[in-house]
């Protein structure tokens, strides 16, 4: 493969640099980088079938704009992306044949983007006259693994938010018997796709996952714990309004509803757009897009606490709490009055008895 890369104008140096970046994302020790380079240089390209269902193609976009200088190219060369509706040259019958061939051979990787609708037998998303459910189960047969990219393919994502008209679910809810790796995010960070694939190619195994099927190398740490604004959080310096002095000084976005304290992702360390920046760095709070149940579980985005279910939008937890305490105080006052009345009555009766 190295020869092929050199023909493309990618130097050995660039290649090793790439291996180093991926090694860092995977958190392998320095000796591991050599192993990654070795594996990638000698590997047979596994074929990849990329399926898009209820999605916005945002993860595809993210993947195509993979920022590590040579990552996109290398991944496209390391892998053989045999089917990807958005970027493939083939169309119609030709395209479907390419997919069938890839699936027939087996041992392929399936990358799924977008959620799968299950209501009305999956009628809400059809490609070539067949439902997403059918297409997914067909592609899953004999696959080495399925990588669910983005929050939709992982947990249902946006389409699964209330009222969820299509009954959207993630891959794990449908596919059994094939390992499914979730790479949530809205969109997924391409580095994490690359790193997952490289891990698979290098170690012939899938990375260690957390309870939501997310690789620990990418989703093992809280956004909050690696955030560059964390010092301001601990100091007690918070942005109170967009564009205020604290905002200009880069203070913590906690009071603006930042979900960093409850969100696991490597956004702060790998960042986006050639490592330029990431949402919180750019001044917007984290909205927790890598967590299960996003979007519903993370709204309201610009407040710390959700509303109390069953109460109107305006009634936050504090208002209800103060109401509860006030009701207790009112009860006490009523009782004080009642007790006084009882006393007076008792006294009056006593006086009557005595007279």
């Amino acid at each position, binding site marked *: 493969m190295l020869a092929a890369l050199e023909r493309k104008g990618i130097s050995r140096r660039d290649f090793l640099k790439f291996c180093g970046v991926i090694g860092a994302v995977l958190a392998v020790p320095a000796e591991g980088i050599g192993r990654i380079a070795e594996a990638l240089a000698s590997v047979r390209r596994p074929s990849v079938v990329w399926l898009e269902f209820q999605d916005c193609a945002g993860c595809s976009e993210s993947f195509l704009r993979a920022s590590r200088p040579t990552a996109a190219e290398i991944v496209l060369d390391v892998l053989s992306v045999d089917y990807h509706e958005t970027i493939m040259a083939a169309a119609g019958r030709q395209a479907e044949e390419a997919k069938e061939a890839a699936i027939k051979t087996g041992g392929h990787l399936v990358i799924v983007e977008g959620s799968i609708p299950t209501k009305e037998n999956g009628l809400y998303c059809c490609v070539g006259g067949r439902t997403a459910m059918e297409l997914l189960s067909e592609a899953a047969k004999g696959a080495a693994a399925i990588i669910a990219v983005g929050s939709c393919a992982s947990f249902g994502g946006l389409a699964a938010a209330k009222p969820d008209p299509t009954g959207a679910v993630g891959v794990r809810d449908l596919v059994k018997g094939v390992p499914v790796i979730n790479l949530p995010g809205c969109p997924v960070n391409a580095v994490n796709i690359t790193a997952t694939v490289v891990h698979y190619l290098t170690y012939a195994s899938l990375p260690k996952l*957390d*309870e*939501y099927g997310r690789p*620990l190398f990418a989703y*093992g*740490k*809280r956004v909050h*714990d690696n955030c560059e604004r964390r*010092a*301001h*959080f*601990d*100091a*007690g*310096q*918070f942005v*109170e309004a967009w564009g205020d002095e*604290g905002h200009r000084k880069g203070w913590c976005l*906690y*009071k603006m509803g930042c979900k960093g*304290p*409850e969100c*696991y992702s490597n956004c702060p360390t790998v960042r986006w757009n050639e490592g330029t920046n990431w949402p919180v760095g750019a001044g917007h709070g984290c909205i927790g897009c890598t*967590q*299960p*149940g996003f979007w519903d*579980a*993370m709204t309201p985005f610009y407040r*710390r*606490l*959700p509303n*109390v279910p069953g109460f109107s939008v305006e009634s936050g*937890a*504090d208002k*209800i*709490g*103060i109401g*509860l*305490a006030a*009701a*207790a*105080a009112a*009860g*006490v006052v009523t*009782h*004080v009055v*009642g*007790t006084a009345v*009882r006393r007076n009555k*008792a006294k009056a009766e006593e006086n009557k008895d005595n007279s």
Partner: protein
Amino acid sequence: MQKRVLVWEAPVRLFHWVAVISMFSLAVTGYYIGFPFLTASGEASSSYLMGWMRAVHFVAAFVLGIACLIRLYWFFTGNEYARFRDWIPVGGVRRSLFWRQVKYYLFLTRKRPEVLGHNPVAGLSYLIVLLLILGQGLIGFALYAEAYQDGFWRSAFGWLLPLFGNQNLRLTHHLLMWVFAAFLIVHLYMSVLAEIEERNGTLTSMFGGYKTEEQPDAYRDLAYREAAAVGEKPED
């Protein structure tokens, strides 16, 4: 004739005041953590406001947790006023006392039932509050475990996170704090009321442990218990 009785043993009193102090600190720091109403000025490196709030919150949580465990142990080891039975209105005498106490609070009877330990209504409210404290602690430690991907805290309490979700846990944690605030108001009032009406040193007993009791002779005591069982107060 009056007699001084040791009602609240040292561990019970200690638990009470440790609970008061730790719950107060937890409420104040917890409120700040949920809504940081103070902002530090100057360089971030020169202050540690949120840091201290969280540190105090966590330490107080550990203190309260350990205190609760010791109190639970004392339910089985302590004197008759410290035992579980004082908090649960079961058994003829306790049940009848319970309803008479409720009637008294609701102005339906005029005579305040005489109880030396917890009156059964108060006892039940403490049982509920203890359960709420344990629930609050469970939620709190689940949120505490969020910072860890594995290890003790994660495995002991982390299972609550996928079960209920962070937002719901924090909302409940927040609302329960207000339930404790409401309890505090009622609790303070009830104890002052008891102090005024019973005149047996209810408030000071929370420091010294002793209450004064009319010395009951054996006969009266028996009569009292029998009467209590049928829901009446024996004539003096």
